[in-house]
């Protein structure tokens, strides 16, 4: 029995676990009492981390599409075809895009970025889930200059007050939910803003309901309460908050409910307060303003510059932060630095020995429809991008589609060339957690068949396109990452123990505080709000889809609801005389759709949610937006 210490590949909390292997087969998971994050605790996903790689639909040989059929091929034949077809497109001056992945290691993402910017000379570089989290990061950046907060899970656990803007924390990030629970159990005040009375909302001292898109109202209410009550931290405000006067005057002196007043007081008077942010189903622009307002609230109450206080972004995938920091993100260089950052460009240019591609490129959602060639590393755009069907259609007519993955996905089925790479359980590398821990994952088994480590495959691709990429191990890639992104240099030197090095995002000397200014979108004739459920669900992620233990529920739901579904509150269901499973017509100004309704008792009245996995079934009503004012009728 082999037991290999590694990092959990699911959410971004960064738990440590042992993968157990018996004669080359992954057979189990064991917890680690001394891992600084997990401390012996794992969620259901962590406990099943051995399953997907050994039970899943795995790619064992390279595949080449000939006459519409996929056939096994040798690595060299697949590489030759890839090089010649991509080379042809480049020669013809056609655009090429590269997609990295929040479930790929830093090393894989870094090399995907290097391949795109230096070898292929394209700026069309991104990862699919970026669009769901970018607004939050941008909002923080607007205020603090840093795209990530600095709070740790230990800070959450030790906090006196916690503000949680949630999707559904208990489901999305059990490890973070555990920290919140421990704090609440100790007596901390939990304030939850959301559109459903979820498990965390029920544990809250105060639950502030807000329809999707309306969280800004609540945050502005909190800001207003701080200003009106004179509860701001004067020292912090004068030392490093710009724009406080403007913020104070922008807030209309709205009526303060007792709950709101209480919440304000808890946050303002807390010695340590943490602010947890997750995508809430609001539009990108609104989400950005909401995040900025939360950062401002933390700023004016002194919790941005206080040890033990701070903001935490609840990132949805194990290496979402790493993908950003490796620069496989639209408009960003490694280090998540703006594309225009001269010194970063120069550093990369000398490191890679090649000019970086000019132009800003688009984001994944836009360039997937404009490029002629696409290289996808370990992701499935149709299930990850918000407009899944459009992404699917775009890939179907792609001149040349390359997919590197460990698992069979919808993208693999369409690809012209498929390169089989190792899953997280079969490769060495690093993942960056939401706290900024750069932790190792280690190979516990050999990749199946002819699959190779992702970094090896990407390094070979780089050299096929004229870049020097003579890495002998993933550590050598990490060493180069340290040169490209200086905050990652210590990660390369970190010892073998649990934990790993920390990376942090640099803050501006002064914060620009501002209010959210949300614009509710309901109208008299469209009184309800339809939104995507804030939780980016795991159902179609191969790490869940291929795990016999984890996929049961999702598979059952997808099977029972082939036409999709919409979740409706008990209140609205009673008003309409609905039972679960009956159909409703949901109509916005853009279009309408008939869907089975599922009653979700926790949901606030007036809110209808479409689970992310079923978003395409309601596309006509959303018309490309994140939410819509709708009316609902029974059919």
């Amino acid at each position, binding site marked *: 029995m082999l037991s290999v210490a590694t990092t959990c590949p699911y959410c971004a909390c960064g738990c440590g676990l042992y993968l157990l292997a018996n*004669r080359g087969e992954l057979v189990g998971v064991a917890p680690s009492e001394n891992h600084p994050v997990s401390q012996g605790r794992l969620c259901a996903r962590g406990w099943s981390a051995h399953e997907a790689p050994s039970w899943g639909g795995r790619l064992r040989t390279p595949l080449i599409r000939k006459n519409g059929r996929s056939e096994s091929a040798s690595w060299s034949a697949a590489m030759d075809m890839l090089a010649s077809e991509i080379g042809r497109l480049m020669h013809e001056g056609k655009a090429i895009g590269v997609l990295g992945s929040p479930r790929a290691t830093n090393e894989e993402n870094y090399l995907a970025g290097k391949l795109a910017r230096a070898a292929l000379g394209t700026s069309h570089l991104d990862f699919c889930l970026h669009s769901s989290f970018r607004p939050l990061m941008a909002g923080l950046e607007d205020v603090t200059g840093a795209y990530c907060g600095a709070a740790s899970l230990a800070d959450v656990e030790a906090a006196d007050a916690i503000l949680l803007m949630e999707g559904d924390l208990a489901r999305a990030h059990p490890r973070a939910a555990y920290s919140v629970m421990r704090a609440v159990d100790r007596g901390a005040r939990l304030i939850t803003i959301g559109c459903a009375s979820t498990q965390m909302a029920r544990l809250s001292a105060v639950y502030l309901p807000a329809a999707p898109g309306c969280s800004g109202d609540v945050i502005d209410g909190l800001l207003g309460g701080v200003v009106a009550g004179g509860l701001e931290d004067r020292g912090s405000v004068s030392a490093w908050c710009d724009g406080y006067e403007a913020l104070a005057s922008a807030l209309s002196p709205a009526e303060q409910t007792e709950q709101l007043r209480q919440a304000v007081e808890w946050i303002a008077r807390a010695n340590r307060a943490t602010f947890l942010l997750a995508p809430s189903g609001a539009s990108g622009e609104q989400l950005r303003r909401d995040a900025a307002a939360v950062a401002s609230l933390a700023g004016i109450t002194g919790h941005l510059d206080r040890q033990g206080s701070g903001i935490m972004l609840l990132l949805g995938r194990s290496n979402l932060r790493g993908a950003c920091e490796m620069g496989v993100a639209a408009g960003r260089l490694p280090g998540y630095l703006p594309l225009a950052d001269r010194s970063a460009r120069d550093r990369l240019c000398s490191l890679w020995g090649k000019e970086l591609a000019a132009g800003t490129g688009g984001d994944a959602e836009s360039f997937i429809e404009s490029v002629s060639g696409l290289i996808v590393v370990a992701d499935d755009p149709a299930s990850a991008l918000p407009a899944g069907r459009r992404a699917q259609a775009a890939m179907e007519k792609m001149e040349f589609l390359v997919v590197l993955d460990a698992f069979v996905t919808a993208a693999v089925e369409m690809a012209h060339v498929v390169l089989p790479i190792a899953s997280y359980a079969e490769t060495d590398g690093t993942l960056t957690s939401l706290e900024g821990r750069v932790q190792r994952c280690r190979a516990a088994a050999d990749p199946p068949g002819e699959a190779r480590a992702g970094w090896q495959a990407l390094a070979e691709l780089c050299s096929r396109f004229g870049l020097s990429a003579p890495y002998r191990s993933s550590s050598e890639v990490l060493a180069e990452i340290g040169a490209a992104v200086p905050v990652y240099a210590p990660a390369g030197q970190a010892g073998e123990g649990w934990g790993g090095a920390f990376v942090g995002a640099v803050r501006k000397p002064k914060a620009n505080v501002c209010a959210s200014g949300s614009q509710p979108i309901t109208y008299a004739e469209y009184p309800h709000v339809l939104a995507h459920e804030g939780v980016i669900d795991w159902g179609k992620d191969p790490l869940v889809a291929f795990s016999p233990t984890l996929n049961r529920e999702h*598979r*059952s739901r997808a*099977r029972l609801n082939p036409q999709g579904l919409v979740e409706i509150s008990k209140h609205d269901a009673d008003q309409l005389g609905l039972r679960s499973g009956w159909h409703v017509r949901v109509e916005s100004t853009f279009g309408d759709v008939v869907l089975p309704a599922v009653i979700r008792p926790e949901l606030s009245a007036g809110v209808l949610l479409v689970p992310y996995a079923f978003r395409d079934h309601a596309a006509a009503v959303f018309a490309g937006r994140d939410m819509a004012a709708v009316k609902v009728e029974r059919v």
Partner: protein
Amino acid sequence: MAETSTRGNDVFLPWIARIEDVRDETPDTKTFTLRFRDPEVMREFEYAPGQFVELSVFGLGEAPFCVASSPTRAGNFQTTVRRTGQLTDALHLLGCGDEVGIRGPFGNGFDVTAAAGKDLLFVAGGIGLPPLRSLIWNILDERSRFGRVTILYGARTPTDLVYKYELKEWERRDDIEFLLTVDRSEPGWEGNVGMVPILFEKTTLRPESTLAYVCGPPIMIKFVVQDLLMRGFRDETVISTLERMMQCGIGKCNHCAIGHRYVCRDGPVFNFRQIRELVE
């Protein structure tokens, strides 16, 4: 590692059975006639109506299905399967000659001896008919041992009725009373329309001398049992089968446990008094 492999009397080891016949019942339901590959195993395969088998579709695992044929008819056995998941999808793609695995029979089954001399009322909804069909044919094959037999059967639509070919025969028989209804009519349907309990109005119930067997979806069972109790049946004379996610069939895996009972061993047949005592 020393791994010895011998065919012992292993509780997890399925016997291989071949599909002899496949019959479409409804658009999503088929009846499979199965015969063990080994004639010896076939000869020794004895079961009571209401018992179930764990059927393997190799590569996808096992699932429990009640035996839908009567033990009075030896030589093969049948099971009726609705497509509801990966395993049943795969099973529906199999045809004559294909092999599956069978473990069982498991569970307590209906007590046929206790039914002797009694009037019998069968109430089935949709895919709830197969377990009762086993009992019904058993009784019809030994008709003289039992009192009056009344069969009430309902489905969502006429299309959803299973064993249509046999229903006609039951309708023609004069030694039983057979009534049929559908929730929603379809063109060409001339029979009753409405939920199963409407059939109670069209027959004569004799609660004092009758055992009632009720099978169907949970919601249908709930309403039918309520109705029967209101019409004078006692808890002990209303008999049903519980559906649970049964995986091992031998009371070990715990999926089907209710209270300290295991549906796979202590059930799936319970009378309503026993059901009342089960703590979820």
